[in-house]
């Protein structure tokens, strides 16, 4: 592992965690949304480092580009851009939230040091080799339309249901 990769990884990880922290503590919803975008960009960078270049691009296009724009649009539409009274919970609510989150992190602590059992791990660079062979998009697209065809088709119904639902809720007259 070249040291440069590690440096970039930790820089991006730090950026993601900082962005997330600021996202949950900023008073203005607009600031929260923008810090979340920072986190999403940092995650896209991490995806690239982890041999998922195509997913990284999608992350920028779909998440940062489409979903977060939708959020910002609604925040503007509801005129929540200016900082109003804080919506953070008081000291008691904060303490409860910190306690629960701390417990969760403690439980999750084991994840960082563990990993898949060695038997099922593939040799280093297998995915990268696959991508060189089939192309960035091809490596993801082949199984998507082969092994994962059924989930893929379910996704299309899911999106249709979401469209119908959003239209029903948003139209003026019932």
């Amino acid at each position, binding site marked *: 592992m070249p040291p440069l990769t590690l440096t970039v990884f930790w820089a991006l990880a730090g950026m993601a965690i900082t962005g997330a922290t600021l996202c949950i503590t900023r008073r203005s919803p607009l600031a929260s949304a923008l810090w979340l975008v920072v986190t999403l960009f940092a995650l896209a960078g991490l995806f690239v480092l982890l041999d998922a270049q195509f997913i990284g691009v999608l992350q920028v296009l779909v998440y940062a580009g489409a979903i977060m724009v939708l959020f910002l649009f609604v925040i503007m539409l509801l005129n929540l851009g200016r900082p109003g009274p804080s919506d953070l919970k008081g000291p008691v609510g904060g303490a409860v939230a910190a306690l629960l989150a701390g417990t969760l992190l403690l439980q999750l602590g084991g994840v960082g040091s*563990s990993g898949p059992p060695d038997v099922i791990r593939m040799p280093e660079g297998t995915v990268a080799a696959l991508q060189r062979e089939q192309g960035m998009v091809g490596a993801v697209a082949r199984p998507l339309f082969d092994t994962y065809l059924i989930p893929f088709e379910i996704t299309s119904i*899911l999106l249709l249901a979401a469209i119908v639902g959003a239209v029903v809720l948003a139209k003026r007259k*019932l």
Partner: protein
Amino acid sequence: MSLDLSIPRGLLLALLPELVLTGWAMILLLFVAWRHRTTRDLRVAGGITAVALVTTAATVWWLWWNQAGVAGIAQMVAVDDYRWVTDWLFLGAAGLTVLVSFEYLERERLLAPEYYVLLLFAVIGMMLMGGAEDLMVLFLGLELMSIAVYVLAGFDRRNPRAAEAALKYFLIGAFASGFLLYGIALIYGATGTTNLSLVGVQVDSLRLGSDPMLLIGLGLLLVGFAFKVAAVPFHMWAPDVYDGAPTPVTAFMATGVKAAAFAALFRVLTEAFPQAGAWREIVAGLAILTMVAGNLVALAQRSLKRMLAYSSIAHAGYLLVAVATGTSAGTAAFLVYLVAYTLMTLGAFALLAAKGRGGESDVLIDDLAGLASRRPWLAFALAVCMLSLLGFPGTAGFIAKWYILLAAAGVGEWLLAAILVLTSVVSAGYYLPVIMVMYMKPEPFEQAHTGVKLGRLAGVAVAAAVAGILYFGVRPNGLLDLAKETGVGVKPVPTFTVEPSGR
């Protein structure tokens, strides 16, 4: 008929029920796009929905009759009796909901036939959950169902309470999905697969019973499911959402949605984690908390709708007892209970819809005083539902509870069995007053019950539910045999060599 899921024909046949229902949903959506203004359009849309559900049920029956199955490990969707039985359950719950909805939508002036489209989408999601053999299919089915039901909960847009119910349900549901998904990710990380049977094989052959990653993943998965089935202490959203949503939707959420979450939970735990026993204690603990808290809080409710909401939480506790046993006797008891619970809960909510107006949240239990003298049949039906919910001998509720008790006793879970009996006794404290008020108290004033009207189709639904409760209460054998046969099928496939995972 043995299906090969790797060729198109086998795949299409295995997915036939879902495909038929999706086709009907598309037809309905096209119809609704052009015709959505008058009451008549609404009725036609409801009629199409009913036909869709019946044809899908017939398709499921055809596959069941031909004993469809797969050789070896099923990919993505399971093809077994458990799937067919749960499919019938979801289709039945949706069918009764449609019957109740006909007059309800007209009465409350909810003239938007998209209601039925969303209902069909939700049923497709449920069927995928009940048949999911892969954690990803399960997750997507769950989301498909949830997204449709979020909208249904807030369908009455003029009512601020319905909008609040939708918001609450949505935020909690999305939060729970996050936990569920993280659990799936960690289970994938620990085993290298998301196929339920293969997860079971990997846990067994790689001895992952105490692998931290797998256990954390399983824990997160259980938290996500606990939210979805409204188990205490993850239940706080349920009473509010059930209270605020339109009553037929509440009935659907309390029966179909809950049954789908339970069906998926049961399959995941028995197929993928028979070797990781840690979940048994967690589920048992959740069951105890849910039975005790659900029943005690229900005692304090005066509104009929809220009382039914807490009662549905309490019944989730009884179902968790069946899940905790994790045996094939447990599977049979679980399925029998789901059927009985769906019938009696849907009947009770349908009758509530007949009594109330504008969301029904203001119908107090005391408002039913003297109903028996004015509307004897209605009062009788509600009394049967209440007795069945209580677990009175001669009703399906009793038989179902009895089999759960037997299953729990069979594996030596005496504590769970004892708490189940004790909390059932407590539940008499809120079910019996409903009957007493109807039969023993005089009506408060002359016209107290003039507005109470059960529409013709809703009447059919209630009659079907009551007939089912009484029939299965007296002759449970047919249902039980079906459930027993089904229970044998839900097992991991033991003979399988570890395949190199990933591609």
